[in-house]
């Protein structure tokens, strides 16, 4: 197993490099440059040109690429081209917000989604199944920013139970948690639908398999069959997807972060690309890709654990 992990980690390095190179090229293909973005429409062309020189944008591309890679090799993530602040500090500031939101979103999704899906599978084609599916699909068909607005209107404006916007102070758990509830619910509800659908499908799949039938044949109680035998196998595809969901939540929570005015990695990435903050985008991607590699790796490992048939 240890050898597998090392192998897997080593094979992530080319992924890293490929992603970084692509990002490096992509941001430079985009029309618009950081100097214009930083100065806005009032500044004159000569001011923009002066700033470009200062930012090092007049250097040839290969040099810029080399600079970037060498800095990375030294472990230096650099400074934001626009704000001049060290990127690692900025990321560390928002990371807790992103982690708590991602984790809470997945937690809500899994805690609501798996029981819903399993129940629907057991009650297949009965009323409960249909109702459950329609409700979960409603969550899936609403864009997150719209769902977020609806939740705010209900809980923050009409009922005044929770704050509408802001991330809360990380040092103050109560403040932080009250600010977390609505965005987490927004992401969680969207996720619930996916999880429930998949859980239902996987469960149906398992329930029809021989060993489950054998277990039933042995006269085991239905609950024991479902929870003891079927659920474990049904978890396999779900587990393999949780990794994917976690990743996509980090990247795609940006609309949720914007609507709730929360700091976060997703918002930071989109902000960097819109501001054409090359160094910031590159460095955030380094960190983000790091997460992706870790999450993928864990998913693969869990996969190996829950499905004993897979051997690497």
């Amino acid at each position, binding site marked *: *197993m240890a050898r597998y992990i090392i192998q897997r980690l080593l094979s992530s390095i080319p992924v890293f490099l490929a992603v970084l190179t692509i990002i490096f090229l992509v941001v430079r293909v985009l*029309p*618009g*440059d950081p100097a*214009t*973005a*930083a*100065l*806005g*429409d*009032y*500044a*004159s062309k*000569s*001011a923009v040109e002066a700033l470009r020189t*200062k930012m090092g944008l007049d250097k040839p591309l290969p040099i810029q690429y080399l600079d970037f890679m060498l800095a990375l090799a030294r472990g230096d993530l650099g400074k*934001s081209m626009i*704000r*001049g*602040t060290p990127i690692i*500090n*900025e990321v*560390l*500031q*928002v*990371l*807790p917000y992103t*982690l*708590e939101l991602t984790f809470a979103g997945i937690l809500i999704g899994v805690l609501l989604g798996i029981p819903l899906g399993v129940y629907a599978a057991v009650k297949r084609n009965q009323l409960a199944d249909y109702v459950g599916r329609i409700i979960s699909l409603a969550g899936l068909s609403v864009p997150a*920013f719209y769902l977020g*607005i609806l939740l*705010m*209107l209900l809980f*923050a*404006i009409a009922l*005044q139970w929770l*704050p*509408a*916007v*802001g991330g809360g102070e*990380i*040092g103050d758990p109560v403040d*932080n948690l009250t600010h977390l509830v609505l965005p987490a619910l927004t992401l969680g509800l969207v996720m619930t639908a996916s999880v429930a659908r998949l859980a239902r499908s996987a469960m149906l799949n398992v329930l029809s398999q021989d060993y489950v039938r054998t277990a039933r044949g042995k006269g085991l109680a239905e609950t024991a069959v479902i929870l003891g035998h079927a659920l474990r196998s049904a978890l396999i595809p779900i587990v393999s997807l949780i990794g994917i969901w976690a990743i996509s939540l980090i990247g795609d929570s940006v609309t949720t972060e*914007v*609507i709730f*005015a*929360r*700091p976060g990695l997703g*918002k*930071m990435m989109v*902000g960097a690309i*819109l*501001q*054409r903050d090359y160094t910031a985008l590159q460095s955030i991607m380094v960190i983000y890709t790091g997460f992706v590699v870790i999450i993928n790796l864990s998913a693969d*490992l*869990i996969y*190996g*654990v*829950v499905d*004993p048939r897979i051997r690497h």
Partner: protein
Amino acid sequence: MKHKFILLAILTIVLVGVACTAAPTPAPTAAPPTAAPKPTDAPKPTEAPKPTQAPQPTAAAKPTDAPKPTEAPKPTVAPTQPPAARSGGVLRIAQNATDLNNLDPHYATTTQDRSIVDMVFNALVRYKPGDGSVFEPDLATELPEPKIVGGKQEWTFNLRKGAMCQPTDGVPAYELTSEDVVYSLTKSANKDRSAYAGDYTGMTFEAVNPSTVKITLDNPISKNLFYPRVSNYSGGFIVCKKAAEKLGADKMKTMPVGTGPFMFKSYTAQDKIVLVANDSYFRGKPQLDGVEVRFMADLTSRELGLRGGQLDVINGAPDKAWVDKMKPVQNVQVDVFGVGEVATMYFNLNIPPMDKLPVRQAIAYALSRDEFLAFVGPTIGENVYSVVPAKFLAGGLTEQEAKAKGLDFTTDLAKAKKLLADAGYPNGFNLKLVTSEMTGYKVLYESLQAQLAKIGIKADVQVIDHTSFHNTIRQDANALVVYIAWRPNADAYLTRFLHSDSIIITGKKPDTNFVHYNKIDKLIDQARVELDATKQVDLWKQAQIQVLEDMVAFPIQYQNQVYARAKTVDYGHDLKSVLALYPGVDEKTKFVK
């Protein structure tokens, strides 16, 4: 089998760990800038210089013009019972932006940057709070009159006493002198250290003595072109020399240090900046404890934050529907105020068939200002008839003046179609345009698209992000460029949009002359050095009549600023016409019950 369970266990622990660390780990990183400094940061270093508040009376005793009397009572209250003066509270403002760009005042160009810079810095003179049409002294003791010495123009400023530079790490608070002012203006004039260097060419700055600064201009200009350059807008903001040297260019982007009523406390990227009251501010202790400016690019989110009570002031939308919706909301006050940013459509003469005058006239006759205005709302904006808005600036053409010359281009579809047919396009033609994703632009381009369709011109409109948009239109991408902008005077409008030096790509100083126009250079140059205000205005008007006769620019409308606030917020001044496009927050701003 065994180690698989162990692995599973480890992973669970890791996941739980990650979740838990989400709360505790940040403490060391986030806490210092936010929570800890609260009690120590603001008062301590500034408490010491407070005795020097003595100069305040001198500032107040100087009253030379109208606004002073209103200010006089404050300073007298402040020294006697400072604690009672403060009404307290932190004002939470949400601006329409993803983040700040640069808080070095000489690089601050966006509204969110300017609004922050304005609270931290002062200038030699300032626009009267809430009324951009009146100048009053700020760091200077009075508004100077120019003197001509040896063909050069000299302006001499006497500095007020007791304007204290805010402390920053390693630099204690100190009194601002002419050395700082000269340093700051020299920086503004240096194109490697300022975005506004162009405004200061041909100017030299000299510290005559610690409290006197002399500015010499090679070419004399009129008062209304000179004051803006030393005002609290753009390059005129005065930075503190020691702080600027200590911080360096990079740190200045996010750490503003000046002499103003509020000072920097902390900043979170793409989230917010926190300012605290500067208790040794020369106009007196600010009423507020501090100000938070949040960067929130989504309107709905700002609106719900205001309604939910997490925000006190928000940037609204220049849309009557939005204003009407917000008006009845309890505890919310909507402010619509000038100055309005002007939307004008420029024809790019390099892209056929825009090189043909009849085609341009046809388009002008096809467009309806009222239709554009309907999407903004008559209370928010108003039609304009010249590139320079007559409502706000000297040198613009009013509707009557345009009509008198037959240059108002009242909508006439039949005439438009005929002109188009005569030019050889009886069935119209196809056009490719790009627009920014920003609502203000998108609405105008979408309306333009629908209006052009009426005379058979099919416009394919591509939406791109705002940064790309600015870049793309400067590369001859659009045959028609709708541009929304505020410039502080007629000279800036005309020079930057229609002087041949500013022609995109090929001009001497490429800027925003999308037209590639060169027919009014002489008039602009002449007006700039004309010292007689009436003659100057005449020249500007002549230039704009020429522009309309050539129909290279179709002025559409101005859009006022729309902000909403909790009713408890009192800015401390009326919002008549704010040059800077945002409601100013200063030492008098407070919460009322």
